Each structure stands twice: as C-alpha cells, then as structure tokens.
C-alpha cells in the first residue's frame, strides 16, 4: 500500500537547515495497522505530511496507494483519508453535519451522496443526533470522532491518523481503538497512525516503526521488538540472602542484566533479564532450593515498548510524552 525510499525532508530555518526526516525507508502492507512511534520532534508528523501530499519531499520517493506523491498528488488525495492532530477550538458557526458534507463534496461527491454518506457515518462513530450541533459545543472525544469522520467521508482504503487519541480520556481512547480495529477487520482499511503512547502502539499496531531524530531506529512487530531488545524480566524474592541468590542465578542462567531493586516496604527483589522467562524460572527455582534459598515470590513479565525505546535510544519515551 505504501512504499517509502530514501524519503527526506530538510527545513530551511534562520539557524540553518534542519533535517527533520533523514532518508527513511519502510513499507506498509495492505490491510495492516502501522504505528509510527517516537517522541515529539522525531519526524513522525513530517513523514505523515509528506505521505499525504501536504509537504513536498526534499528527496526520495513515496508511492502511496499506487501513486507517487511527487507525481499525481490529486489522485493520491482521492485515495487517502487524513486525520490531522487535534486542532484549536473551532469558531462558532460551524456545524457538524455541514462540515462533513463540505468535506465529502470537496472529495467530489454530489450533494445528495454527500448528505447520505454523512447520515450513515455519524451513527457509526456514535455521533447520531449531532448533525445540527455546533462544533464548539462538542467534548474532546466527540470532536476527535468527528475528525475521524471527516477523514473517512470518501471511504478511502488507506487512512492516516496523526496522534488520534492525544488528550482523550481512557474510555474515549478505548472506543476509538475499537473503531480503528473495526476499520481494518471489517472494511480491510490500511491504517498508518502516529503516536507517542507506547500502549497505543502496542495495543493497535500490527507493525511498529520507531523513529528518533528523523531516522528509523526499529521496524518490526510489537512482540518481535520486545523480544529482540530485552528478553523477559524475572523478579524474585527469597527467604535468605539476596546477594547469594544473585550469585546462584548468575551461575545457572547467565542473565543479560542482574540488579537488586529496593521496593521500599515490600523489601528487596532480584531483577534479572533473560532470553526466555518461561524456561528460566524452573531452572532458577531448583538451583535456589539446592542452595537453601527458597523462593518466596516470583514474577515474570514481558518487556514493554518503553523498555524497547530505552534500549534503542538511551532515553525513555515517557519523559518526553505529554
């Protein structure tokens, strides 16, 4: 659905050229949800804007829905839907139904088709009865669903969503996630979304492209990314000396990392990262028993995407997200 080769964007600023996107390559397959993940300023939105024909690439090429964005931009626009980041509070005087009809008509639909489409679209996004409502009277979640409706008026097979759930409450986020999954599962829509929320990329995306400082630092499925970077995390407590337990674990497991974490009131834990947690636990259990250091608690958890980002860039995504 999308093929990106050497895509570059250099902005000219007063302080000299800024390389916002530095020659990236990636692909998006039909019917998948691709998550573009990265902190603010990583180049996600700039990449999206180039793919949506809103910004001419400085160099490189992008074939979107079968058309080169540097070639027939109008045809690309006909085939894609684009939902921008949350905009400012709308001026009074704009009405939900009318705005959707205007958008549909600019996509080339007749007045009657546009109105029929608007009436069908509103209920599917839980916006029934909002036709005559002023935009300025909508809640954050309603406004975001309205934004999504605008991007879908012409039933595109490829939709770009720029930070779709930023600023939404958990309930509204979950609803929007369900809708995005439904688009893929029932309509076969290919979706590219940017986010700086790890849980969002993890929950929604079939594949994740991690961007940092204008380059792609990783491109894989969420599970593969997690497995590749940090393995599993085992956290144990023992009845006895934890330092002795650490030496035992080092002998039998050769963990990648091994630290003793102070959990405050709950005492200390030995935290190990190993390739596979499920096979490591029985081995560790037996070895600790033989050393008369019986386990009192054990927890195995999969690494989060935050661990992935930290390992790849040396920075935590959480520190920069909003």
């Amino acid at each position, binding site marked *: 659905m999308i093929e990106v080769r050497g895509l570059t964007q250099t902005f000219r600023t007063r302080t000299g050229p800024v390389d916002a996107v530095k020659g990236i390559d990636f692909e998006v397959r039909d019917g998948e949800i691709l998550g573009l993940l990265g902190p603010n300023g990583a180049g996600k939105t700039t990449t999206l804007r180039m793919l949506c024909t*809103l910004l001419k690439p400085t160099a490189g090429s992008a074939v979107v829905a079968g058309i080169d964005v540097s070639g027939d931009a109008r045809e690309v626009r006909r085939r894609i839907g684009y939902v921008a980041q949350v905009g400012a509070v709308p001026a009074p005087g704009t009405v939900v139904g*009318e705005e959707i009809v*205007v958008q549909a008509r600019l996509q080339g639909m007749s007045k009657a088709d546009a109105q029929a489409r608007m009436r069908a679209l509103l209920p599917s996004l839980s916006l029934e009865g909002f036709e005559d409502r002023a935009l300025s009277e909508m809640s954050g979640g309603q406004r975001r669903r309205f934004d999504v409706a605008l991007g879908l008026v012409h039933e595109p097979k490829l939709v770009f969503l720029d930070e779709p759930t930023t600023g939404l409450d958990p309930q509204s986020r979950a609803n929007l996630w369900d809708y995005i999954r439904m688009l893929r599962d029932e309509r076969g829509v290919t979706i590219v979304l940017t986010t700086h929320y790890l849980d969002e990329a993890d929950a929604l995306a079939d594949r994740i492209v991690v961007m940092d400082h204008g380059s792609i630092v990783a491109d894989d499925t969420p599970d593969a990314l997690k497995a590749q970077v940090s393995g599993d995390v085992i956290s144990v407590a023992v009845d006895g000396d934890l330092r002795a337990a650490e030496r035992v674990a080092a002998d039998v497991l050769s963990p990648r990392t091994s630290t003793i974490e102070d959990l405050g009131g709950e005492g200390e834990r030995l935290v190990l990262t190993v390739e596979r947690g499920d096979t490591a636990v029985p081995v560790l259990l037996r070895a600790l028993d033989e050393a008369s250091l019986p386990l009192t608690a054990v927890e195995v958890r999969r690494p989060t995407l935050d661990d992935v980002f930290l390992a790849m860039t040396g920075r935590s995504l959480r520190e920069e997200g909003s």
Partner: protein
Amino acid sequence: MLTETWVIYDRQIRSNIRNPVWVFFGLTQPILYLVLFGPLLTNVSGGGLGGDESWLIFVPGLLLQLTIFGAGFAGFGIIQELREGVVERQRVTPAHRSALILGRALSNTVTIGVQAVILVLVAIPFGLRPSWWGVVVSVVMVSVLSLGLAAASYAMGLILKDEDSFAPFVQGVSLPLLLLSGVFLPMTLAPAWLEKMSQANPLTYVLDGTRSLFAGDWGARAISVGIVCTVVVTVALTWWSARRFQRLSS
C-alpha cells in the same frame, strides 16, 4: 472547479450568516467617520467640497476604506482556520487549490457588497444625492476589488501564519494605500510631492472613478480608468494569491 468554489463559498457564507455581528463590525468604522467626521466637510471649501456636494466626494472614500479594511483583514479568518485544521483537511482533498481561495474571497465580496449598500443608505439622510446608477456601478467596482484584496490577504495570512505578524503587516500596507488614494480629502488639495506619490497608487484611480460615478459625470475619463484599474489590480492579486496558495500546499 466551479462546484468546489461554490462549496467553499457556501460554507463561508453560512458561517457569516450565523455570526452577522461581523457584517456590522466592519461597518462601524466607516459609519463613525460618516457621522462624526463627514459633516465637517460640508463647511469646508476647495477641491469640490462644500455643502451637500461634499458627500459625493466623501462617501466614495468611505466605500474604499470599507473595502480595504474589510478585505484586507480577511486573512485573520484563515489564520484561525489554519489553527482549527480546516485549511489542512481541505488541502488533502483533490479540490483545486484556487477553488479553496476563490470560494473564500467570493464570500468577502458579497459581505462587502452588502456593507457598501448599507453605508450608502445611511449616508442619504445626511444629504447624499448621488447618481443612483453611478452608485450601482461603484458598489460593483468595490466588490470586485475586494475579491483581489481578500485573496491576497488570505495568501498573506497563510504565509505569515499568526496574528502577531499579520496585524502589523496589514496595518502597514492598508493605511498608507488608503491615505495616498485621497480617501478623506481629494488629492487636488495635496502638495506636489504628495500628489506624485498618490499617482503611483492604483487605488487612487479606483477612487477617482467612483467619485465621478457618484457625481454622475458619465463622460469623465476617470470612470474608464478606474474600472480598468480595478480589474487589473483584482486579476493580478487573485492570480498571485492562487499561485502562492498552490505553492504553500504543494
């Protein structure tokens, strides 16, 4: 292209109708000049002023003021739309870029046409006795001019992107243009250097044209010169704006 222009025009007009306060807001300044400054001119002599004849000089000036400020400040609207994301989402449609700017500018044309008619009507009780056909042609002229000015204002709004740099720009351009066209007093009263500068301003000829029209002086060369100037300025500004808009959205 025509449909797209109409769709955008229709959207802007609906929004104006829901907030008619803007139509009156744009009228307050010229009406204040009409009521609180205009009467002074009836007691001044020279340059064709004096008595009720003064209104034939002054009201066309107010029409030009209305046009320059009304259309010149149109760009504020697109800066707000830029922030709301309206411009962006219209740009990702296959609609022609020029339709997006023309539809908007046409809505200003209609607003200014309506305001111009109201302004002329308000001036009647003060003693305005113009050639009515001249008024009709004049209103059409300033409406056409406002198309070019509004389009240019939208393009500048998109270039400058925020009110803080847009406001001083519009003030800095519109006020000198307005004063140099001889908006309050005819330029025949001006010293030679000021008159020279005034002759370099195309809006001077538009104003001279509408003054001759108000006076019903149909034989005056100023009328044809004014009409040609209006058309040339409008075509040039609209063309430039459409190109800028195209370039800005690739």
